[in-house]
Each structure stands twice: as structure tokens, then as C-alpha cells.
């Protein structure tokens, strides 16, 4: 073997030993098997490549579109106008003195107005 490990040429003795050790049994039969396996394997055509590329991206696009739809629906909900009618209806059911007073109405009066009970709660 080469005495210096710094030698920049292949070590012929060590190389031969390694080749003998690693080549394995029946190399010709092995090569034949690999050739047969490759010959029986179809090459991926361009459409296969394209579909392989497209599949994950189509899924990603579908997920992104779903997320955008959900986001749009969520924004539409949160920016919808306040139900003014309901507020007006409650306010119109309040006894007149609560509307005219500078003091805010008592919770019981608001609850009674919401129930549609026009009588003033007993104080």
C-alpha cells in the first residue's frame, strides 16, 4: 500500500483489495437484473411530469381559495350594518320618562322594553 496517506494517486493495492471485497458475487447476473428492471420500467412522459407537478399545486390552490372564501365570508359578517331596526324598536318601547330623562334607563326598564312589556317596572 501507499505509505503516505497524502499520496494524490490512487493506492493500487488498497484499490484492488477494495474492488475484490466490494464487487459482490455474480456481477454479470447483477447487471442483467438491473438492465431487465430498467427495460421494464416506463419512462415518465411529459404529462406525468406535469401532473406530478400540478397535483400538489392544485391542492395548494384549492386550500388557498377555500381560505380566501372563508376570510371573505368572515369580513362580510363582521362589516355587516348594525341592526338599527332592533335598536329603534327597543328604544320606542321604553317608557317616555326614560327617554326624556338625562339619566340612563335602569336595566330592568330596558329588559321590560325588550320583552315588549310597556308597563314600567315597579321601583
Amino acid at each position, binding site marked *: *500500500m*501507499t505509505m503516505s*496517506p*497524502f*499520496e494524490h494517486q*490512487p*493506492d493500487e*493495492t*488498497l*484499490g*484492488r*483489495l*477494495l*474492488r*475484490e*471485497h*466490494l*464487487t*459482490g*458475487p455474480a*456481477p454479470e447476473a*447483477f*447487471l442483467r*437484473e*438491473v*438492465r431487465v*428492471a*430498467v*427495460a421494464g*420500467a416506463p*419512462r*415518465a412522459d411529459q404529462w406525468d411530469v406535469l401532473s406530478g407537478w400540478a397535483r400538489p399545486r392544485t391542492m395548494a390552490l384549492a386550500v388557498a381559495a377555500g381560505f380566501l372564501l372563508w376570510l371573505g365570508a368572515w369580513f362580510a359578517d363582521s362589516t355587516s350594518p348594525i341592526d338599527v331596526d332592533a335598536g329603534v324598536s327597543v328604544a320606542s318601547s321604553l317608557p317616555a320618562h326614560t327617554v326624556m330623562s338625562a339619566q340612563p334607563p335602569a336595566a330592568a326598564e330596558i329588559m321590560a322594553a325588550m320583552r315588549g312589556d310597556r308597563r314600567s317596572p315597579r321601583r
Partner: protein
Amino acid sequence: MDDAELAHAAARGDPDAFGRLIDQHGIAARRAARAILRDDDDADDAVQEGMLAAWRAIDRYDAARPFRPWLMRIVVNAALDARRRSRVRQAEPIAETLESGGLGPDRWAEAALLREKIDAGLAELPERQRIALVLFDAEGWGHADIAATLGVPEGTVRSYVFHARRAMRKALGTLAEGMK
């Protein structure tokens, strides 16, 4: 036809051209896979897997670059993947492949001991050192091709070969001298 021409023919769908590339590089690929996997069957499977991957990707091979590192990188990656998958399994020492070649009993015993020591020496080497050593000393590759295959700088390959040789020399002792 050289490798690039065969690869070009294979890319046009000629399986015989790719078969010739297998003939030219298959055994070197097998040795590299066996150096990585240390198991006969796993190594042969990895080579077959790598060759199939190369066949399917042959039209992406850039003919301006050397074919051998391109192919070997695919095979080496297939072997490294197989190794990751089989890490839990106990690796078995590779089968004895040195022929007795009509050696007398003493020489045969010496050869058997040498096989054992090569096996033990290779088993002790880190994976990348083992690959670099086999590609450099057994296959005669240049540092640049090994660097391209392993995806490391050339200086790193020199370091791998240096350390691997030193370890193998220590493992083999004076036995290898007797086999010349």
C-alpha cells in the same frame, strides 16, 4: 459512443443505450452502494432503485457535465436513503467475495483474515470517508468528481481520503503487503 452520447440516446427513449450505461457503471455503483450499506441485498436494491431513478430522469441530465458523477450521485443518494430507512436493522457483514484462487491453506487463511480486516476497517470508517476512499482508490475517481457526488468541497474529499487511508492501513497492518 461515449457516456454523453449514450445518455442522449437514452433520453430519446432508447433503453439499450441506457443498458450500456448500466454495463459501464453498474459494478462501480454496486461497490459504492455496498460500501455505504454493508449489506448485499440492500446494496443491490439501492443500485436498482438509483438506476431506475436515473432512467426516469435521464432527459434532465445536462450533457455539458460528466455523466458518471451525475449517475453516481443518484445511486449514492438511493443508498443513503436506504441506509436511513434500515438504520434500525442490524447490518450484516458483506459476504466473502475473494476467491481462494488456488491458494494453499496458509495463503487461503491469510486471505480470509485479510477479508475480515478489510470488513472491520471499512465498518469503522465514517460513511463519507468510506465512500471517498472507495471512489478514489478502488474506482480511480478524481477528487473533483467525488466532491461533486458527495456535494462537498474538494479539500474535504482529500481530508476524507487521508483519514480513511490512515485508518485502513492501521486496520490491515502488514497483511496487505503479503497479498501483492
